[in-house]
């Protein structure tokens, strides 16, 4: 079975997984309103890291975050990152895209290539393998974990360091603004008054390995699936087709009552959350609690799948289902049990669900101690 060895989250809410969990459990969010930042004409609400002015340093802010997050997870796992039996997989949508801005002069432009950015990390750790970058829109973080599970299952590596990261910039914020996808206030996932998403900076790392025997407290990445809506490149399916199929694929013959919760994508755009409610109901999961963490972090893009998996593992470890910050009144047409406050659970498994542009969807079934 594929087992989580260690993990880390770096976000505006903390630089360890534990700090992040404590902050979120107490209801903290780093979402703030920014007016005039990066010369953008429209204000926006986002969860941003402090940018230092180290323009002549060796690494960009994106590279610093992936190296720092990986470093902390590697040191907790106590593995030799320089070994050729260790693979690095990076999940990101836009990497160093801000280097395309003509005003950014401190770094070679080639670092805008995602493979080059990832190599800054592997070179730092003296790892000889070519890093794999998963760039599958907003589902990248779950896809990267699925790619890691497959490499380990095939016996190609002993450890996979799976790092998810995106750093916000004028490029990304203006793009989402041009789509009218951003909320002018803090986002409200699944709520009747939701009107768009917020964006966020984060890096998160999970290290996986393969084991024959699993302890009761060890987290198993049990099954993952990626499916397409085959419907539209920028709009979700009206039948939740890809998310439904991804959910069915990871559920297998698992009883829904074994699930503590479904941690949804829950971006708080009108269409995404509606689509997810359709998919979750079609998959027979209406009775399972649903939450979204976007009200704490915003949408952290390439980091989201990794970060939200880590937060969900910690919640189950704490016998807790995290509240959906920003949610008050159900505003999707299919009945969902969305958590509006922290709630206790005795269950040991959850599903992480994501969807993204290009019609892609991904689901990951995580089970503590394996399925029992």
């Amino acid at each position, binding site marked *: 079975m594929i087992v989580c060895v260690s993990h880390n989250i770096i976000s505006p809410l903390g630089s360890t997984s534990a700090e992040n969990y404590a902050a979120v459990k107490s209801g903290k969010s780093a979402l703030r309103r920014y007016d005039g930042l990066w*010369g953008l*004409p429209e204000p926006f609400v986002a969860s941003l890291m402090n940018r230092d002015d180290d323009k002549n340093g060796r690494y960009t802010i994106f590279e610093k975050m992936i190296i720092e997050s990986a470093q902390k997870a590697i040191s907790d796992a106590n593995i030799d990152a320089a070994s050729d039996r260790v693979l690095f997989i990076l999940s990101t*949508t*836009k*990497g160093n*895209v801000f280097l*395309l*801005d*003509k005003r950014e002069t401190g770094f070679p432009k080639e670092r*805008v*290539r*995602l*493979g*080059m950015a*990832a*190599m800054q990390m592997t070179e730092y750790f003296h790892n000889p393998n*070519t*890093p*794999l*970058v*998963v*760039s*599958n*829109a907003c589902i990248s973080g779950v*896809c990267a974990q699925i*790619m890691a599970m*497959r*490499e380990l*299952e*095939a016996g*190609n590596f002993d450890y996979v360091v799976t790092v998810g990261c995106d750093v916000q910039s*004028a*490029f990304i914020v*203006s*793009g*989402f*603004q*041009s*789509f009218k996808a951003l909320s002018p206030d803090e986002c409200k996932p699944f709520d009747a008054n939701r009107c768009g998403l917020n964006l966020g900076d984060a890096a998160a790392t999970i290290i996986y390995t393969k084991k024959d025997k699993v302890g009761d407290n060890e987290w198993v990445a049990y099954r993952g*699936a*990626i*499916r*397409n*809506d*085959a*419907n*539209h*490149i*920028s709009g979700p399916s009206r039948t939740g*087709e*890809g998310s439904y*199929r991804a959910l069915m*694929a990871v559920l297998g013959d698992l009883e829904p009552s074994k699930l503590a919760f479904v941690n949804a994508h829950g971006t708080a755009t009108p269409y995404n959350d509606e689509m997810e409610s359709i998919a979750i109901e079609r998959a027979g999961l209406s009775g399972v609690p649903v939450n979204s963490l976007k009200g704490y972090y915003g949408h952290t893009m390439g980091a989201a799948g990794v970060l939200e998996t880590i937060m969900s593992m910690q919640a189950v470890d704490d016998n807790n289902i995290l509240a959906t910050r920003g949610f008050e009144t159900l505003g999707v047409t299919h009945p969902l049990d969305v958590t509006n406050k922290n709630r206790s659970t005795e269950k040991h498994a959850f599903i992480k669900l994501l969807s*993204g*542009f*290009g*019609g*892609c969807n991904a689901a990951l079934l995580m089970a503590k101690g394996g399925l029992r």
Partner: protein
Amino acid sequence: MIRHQVYISPNEVKVDGKALTIKSCGSAMLTDLYREHVGDYPKFFKMDTLSKVGFIASELLLNAEGDRSFDPREDRAVIFFNRNASLQDDTAYQATIQDPENFFPSPAIFVYTLPNIVTGEIAIRNKYFGETSFMVIDSFDEKIIMRNLENAFQDPITKSIIGGWVDCSDEEHFEANIFLMEK
């Protein structure tokens, strides 16, 4: 097992190793290939270059497979790799926001600033509900590509894959080397 293979560069097209006669080069060649070998999918003209290259390559591949069917299926995955991700569109989008005096961010360009859109275009065209994935490595590496494609068959639903390399640095510079692979 590899069933069919398509190679496209700005001045060469090969299907299963046999060169096709082409009348033009670069972006004009893609349009000519569309008119000659597809013809009934006007969405093609809205696509960015990366999607056009991947789409045309997939059409030639599926024509080589024969018995084109558009019945929905979940057992076929589309999994691509490249070097430049969506760099052409990233550069084009940056130009729309570079100048504060002339700031016109375009949603039509922004949507293509994700490399995996090409996999979605192919899934939509053929009604594939299966896996679609996009991965980036800094140089073409057949071993890494084949290893990951073999791995994808660990999903018990997946019986065949349209997979390989689809890269584009600008409108006139691109390369596709894709194949249809069965379990």
